[in-house]
């Protein structure tokens, strides 16, 4: 390197070098621990270049040294972990990271250091990492997987380290509506937004950068006879001053979805830690519903494919121009320009005016004419036409550029007449790709433009229009006309009226001659194979990889993409896509439109996890449903488990008790004395009307219409495919009124299910379906002393065995509160479920506790409930059912009517598939070792050879039973009901556990305890 400073003097470029930076102030930052300085207005990228930093990262696969090539969101190489500790965020593009005092940046994908990287050895063996190397290399032997392949892939895969601690910052999400959403704040977006604003529309205009204007500042010309930068500044100020317009900087529209729904991420405070200290969110996710969308996302310059084109110092031409003009930074002092179009001549002019030597302009075209070319010729710069770069002379380790080799482009592809030109900077321009990504997110179809050798927007069904460079329109007067008309038309479409069409601002710009695509520049020697012609810099995909994929038979571009991983990194192929299509087209000898392109999908650039989560973390993760008794649970030490959005007490551990000890105590309390359970979460639906009974007969497997008023019946709900999805007790409150109980998790679903059948299949039945779950507090008072507890409370109900029988329902009062009492039992003990209006719940609960203390009453949680139901052989929806289990599989045929002509699921239950004798059936399991509790979900096998056996079933529920002092389990086993007394085995880690198939009712088989 020359040792000259990279920061240009203020006087360079006619006093305009470094338009965006404030040279009067200095900021310091660290890069891999080294302290460097920059100025306010710098990006991390411009500051690194100003400090002479060339190598900013190592490449993904070969760990080749890489430098910056771009200036915006297209940058594939300059990815950094920025920030410290919990605030560290990986994979930030240096080109978009604004410099602040104290910024810390770490390079990625290198070990142990950027300068010396062990993984660079991969490059020596690049022939081992061709296209599809994952599929080819890591195949066998099988034992290598665990210890060699997987650790290697895990280390090599993915870019950047994740932060290790919880994110201390806040994030937020907002929902907004607008008439017109303008995506992109370049000259096209600004003109479109102004036209829409003037037409009276509510407008949002968003740009991903810290400032508006896109790259118009680098393109020259005038608008309304003034510098375009001045015109844009004034127009943006006008937009910002209008109350109907929202102007958003640092905001990327990352996705466009159906019905004009757009998601934008605003980087609110990444550029200024003081904002976070003052309470601002780091990122804000905007969810926008727009009437119309105007896409003005501009275009991205594409690299050229020549050997060693990834050497640090080789950059996009417009990016170099931008660094000089915006930040007063030149990445090198002896530049070569390689181009196939006129735009790169603007870079030559900028470098010349900034005092940087332009050693040569190499133009792949036979000739170039026009004002841009003439101006450069006048500087005396040497031009070489019909030529390309045939090779790069690299510094040791490939960390920089010494010279390039120029050779004529010949039809034969052979390289000769090579001339070496010393240089430390190459500005390349392969033409421009319209940024059509968002256009494609929903239904947009692309057309191929031969003029641009790129895809441009074609047709779309969306209320979306594309203007400016994103639409393939590159000439300033045309951009302004198209954008002004587009903004006006969008406003008119969104709000119905828009007044007269406005006149576009007048503009002048240099005219440009046609470009000519070049997809591959021949190289000297073996490098002509293309395995150093990089297409996708971020994922290390070369021209040779793409050609190999085609040779191996891949034809679809979607397959080539996945096989080679081209375009699959965090930059989503912004710079690589079209170049790869050119290579595929050449290899297949078809045209690019015949090859087609891969589909662009959201997000345009990565979105932080924090922005996705927004405010929904910690206590706000999801709403919590509270029963009327919740406050009592909270002060009485409940240990919770989540049940849907409820938090139910799992148990109530006393001081020094473990969960297990508490559950055992609670079970024994219910079995020997009395317990109290908060069952308020139980789903409750009232079905009322003259046809309520008839309707429930169609919903349930058994008959409900015959139920007498004041009685309860257990019922099963199947879908029409014959599979069980819910169960519960139905009580008849009155002639035309039933109360349906559902499981806690299925209450909403069951109400919607009833509605669906009522509305679609049986609309003539006269009834109402009313979900009432939260109107009632409900608790179970269960145990041998339950009756004594109730009888000790003031009541107009007679709880005696004769007056209040098992499966009876009665309404009355208890301790002054109106109650519905159901004598039903899920524990197998004498049990009453008492429901009272929610507002009376807590007082009644307390009264029952007070009355029960002398009888040894203890509150119990869901786990004791589960253990006791298992001891009794009762199924649990979600444990014994999984959507493929029928009532017959569970031995519940006694609850499945054969008499009723029709009910949901009846006919399906008769099909051969659901009648097969080898279906898995519900059984009990007793392990030979009574102290061993089987793991939940473990598979069961016949015989003792676990390696050869097919599973014949699995464990669906498993507990230690305090009542029986042994382990118990349920399983679904093939032909299980025929196999009582047989032994099956359960492979657990490296051993087999034996268990006997038994009747699933483990305790009180005759049901005497609940019937006293």
């Amino acid at each position: 390197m020359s040792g000259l400073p990279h920061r240009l003097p203020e006087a360079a470029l006619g006093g305009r070098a470094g338009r965006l930076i404030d040279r009067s102030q200095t900021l310091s930052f660290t890069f891999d621990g080294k302290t460097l300085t920059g100025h306010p207005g710098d990006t991390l990228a411009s500051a690194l270049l100003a400090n002479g930093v060339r190598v900013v990262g190592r490449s993904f696969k070969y760990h080749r040294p890489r430098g910056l090539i771009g200036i915006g969101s297209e940058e594939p190489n300059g990815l950094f972990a920025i920030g410290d500790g919990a605030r560290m965020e990986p994979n930030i593009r240096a080109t978009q990271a604004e410099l602040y005092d104290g910024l810390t940046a770490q390079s990625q994908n290198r070990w142990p250091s950027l300068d010396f990287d062990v993984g660079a050895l991969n490059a020596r063996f690049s022939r081992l990492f061709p296209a599809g190397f994952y599929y080819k290399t890591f195949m066998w032997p099988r034992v290598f997987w665990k210890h060699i392949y997987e650790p290697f892939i895990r280390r090599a895969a993915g870019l950047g380290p994740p932060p290790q601690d919880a994110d201390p910052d806040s994030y937020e999400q907002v929902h907004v509506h607008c008439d017109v959403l303008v995506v992109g704040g370049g000259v096209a977006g600004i003109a479109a937004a102004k036209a829409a604003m003037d037409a009276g529309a509510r407008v949002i205009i968003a740009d991903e950068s810290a400032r508006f204007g896109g790259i118009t500042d680098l393109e020259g010309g005038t608008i309304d006879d003034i510098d375009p930068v001045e015109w844009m500044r004034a127009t943006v100020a006008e937009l910002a001053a209008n109350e109907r317009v929202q102007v958003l900087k640092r905001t990327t529209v990352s996705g466009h979805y159906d019905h004009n729904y757009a998601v934008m991420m605003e980087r609110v405070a990444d550029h200024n830690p003081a904002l976070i200290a003052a309470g601002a969110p780091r990122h804000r996710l905007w969810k926008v519903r727009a009437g119309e969308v105007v896409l003005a996302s501009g275009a991205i310059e594409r690299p050229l494919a020549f050997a060693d084109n990834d050497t640090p110092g080789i950059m996009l031409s417009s990016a170099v121009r931008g660094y000089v003009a915006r930040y007063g930074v030149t990445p090198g002092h002896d530049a070569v320009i390689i181009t196939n179009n006129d735009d790169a001549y603007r870079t030559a002019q900028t470098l010349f005016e900034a005092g940087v030597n332009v050693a040569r302009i190499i133009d792949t075209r036979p000739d170039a004419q026009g004002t841009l070319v003439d101006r450069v010729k006048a500087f005396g710069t040497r031009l070489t036409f019909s030529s390309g770069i045939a090779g790069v002379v690299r510094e040791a380790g490939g960390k920089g550029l010494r010279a390039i080799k120029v050779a004529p482009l010949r039809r034969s592809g052979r390289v000769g007449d090579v001339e070496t030109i010393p240089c430390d900077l190459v500005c390349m321009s392969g033409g421009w790709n319209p940024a059509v990504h968002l256009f494609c997110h929903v239904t947009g179809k692309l057309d191929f433009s031969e003029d641009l050798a790129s895809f441009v927007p074609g047709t779309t069904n969306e209320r979306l229009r594309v203007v400016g460079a994103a639409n393939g329109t590159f000439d300033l007067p045309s951009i302004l006309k198209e954008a002004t008309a587009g903004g006006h038309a969008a406003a008119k479409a969104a709000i119905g009226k828009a007044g007269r069409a406005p006149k576009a601002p007048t503009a002048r710009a240099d005219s440009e001659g046609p470009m000519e695509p070049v997809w591959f520049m021949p190289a000297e020697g073996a490098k002509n194979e293309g395995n150093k012609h990089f297409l996708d810099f971020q994922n290390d995909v070369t021209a040779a990889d793409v050609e190999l994929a085609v040779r191996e038979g891949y034809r679809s571009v979607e397959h080539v993409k996945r096989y080679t991983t081209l375009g699959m990194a965090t930059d989503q192929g912004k710079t690589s896509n079209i170049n790869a299509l050119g290579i595929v087209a050449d290899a297949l000898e078809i045209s690019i439109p015949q090859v087609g392109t891969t589909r662009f999908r959201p997000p345009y650039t990565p979105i932080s996890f924090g922005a996705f989560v927004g405010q929904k973390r910690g206590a706000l993760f999801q709403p919590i449903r509270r029963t009327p008794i919740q406050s009592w649970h909270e002060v009485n030490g409940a240990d919770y488990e989540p049940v849907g959005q409820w938090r139910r007490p799992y148990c109530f551990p006393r001081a020094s008790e473990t969960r297990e000890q508490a559950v055992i105590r609670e079970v024994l309390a219910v079995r020997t004395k009395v317990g109290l359970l908060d069952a308020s979460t139980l789903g409750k639906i009232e079905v009322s009307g003259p046809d309520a009974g008839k309707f429930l007969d169609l919903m349930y497997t058994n008959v409900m219409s015959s139920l007498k008023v004041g009685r309860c019946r257990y019922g099963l709900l199947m879908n029409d495919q014959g599979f069980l999805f819910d169960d519960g007790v139905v009580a008849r409150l009155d002639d035309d009124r039933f109360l349906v109980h559902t499981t806690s998790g299925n209450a909403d679903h069951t109400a919607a299910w009833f509605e669906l059948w009522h509305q679609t299949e049986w609309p003539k039945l006269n009834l109402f379906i009313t979900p009432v779950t939260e109107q009632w507090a409900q608790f179970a008072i269960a145990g041998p002393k339950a009756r004594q507890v109730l009888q000790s409370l003031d009541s107009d109900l007679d709880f005696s065995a004769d007056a209040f029988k098992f499966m009876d329902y009665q309404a009355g009062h208890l301790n002054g509160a109106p109650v519905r009492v159901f004598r039903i039992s899920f524990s197998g003990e004498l049990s009453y479920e008492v429901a009272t209006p929610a507002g009376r719940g807590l007082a009644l609960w307390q009264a029952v506790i007070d009355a029960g203390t002398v009888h040894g009453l203890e509150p119990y949680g869901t786990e004791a409930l589960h253990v006791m139901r298992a001891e009794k052989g009762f199924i649990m929806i979600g444990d014994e059912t999984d959507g493929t289990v029928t009532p017959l599989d569970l031995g519940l045929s006694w609850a499945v009517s054969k008499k009723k002509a029709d009910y949901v699921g009846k006919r399906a239950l008769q099909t051969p598939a659901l009648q097969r004798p080898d279906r898995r059936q519900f059984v009990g399991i007793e392990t030979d070792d009574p102290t061993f509790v089987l793991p939940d979900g473990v598979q069961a096998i016949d015989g003792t050879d676990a390696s050869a056996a097919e599973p014949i079933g699995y464990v669906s529920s498993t507990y230690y039973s305090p009542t029986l002092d042994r382990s118990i389990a349920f399983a679904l086993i093939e032909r299980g009901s025929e196999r009582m007394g047989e032994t099956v085995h359960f492979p657990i880690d490296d051993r087999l556990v034996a268990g006997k198939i038994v009747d699933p009712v483990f305790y009180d088989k005759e049901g005497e305890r609940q019937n006293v």
Partner: protein
Amino acid sequence: MLVLHCPVCGIEGEEADFHCGGEAHLVRPQSHDPENVSDEVLRDYLYLRQNPRGLHCEMWQCTRGCGKWFNAVRDTVTMEFKAFYRMDQKAPDLANFDEGQS
């Protein structure tokens, strides 16, 4: 994210405020003659769906509004809703569908 309109309670909302119940106007053979439903007829009713490219009648529930179900005609290519109609209204004639008819 789709925008829907409930023809029962009149609310307009986003997809997440509703729940899709799949193809509408299925004919349930058991409801008409429960004793004479062949396995083949049952299979077609339970499992075969039209999955058209173009107009599709489907059921939606207004989960965060009135709780009722209704039908919608959606173009599966453009994702546009062409009509919303109540369960007690007749299925539109998709072969001669006129957007003005509902």
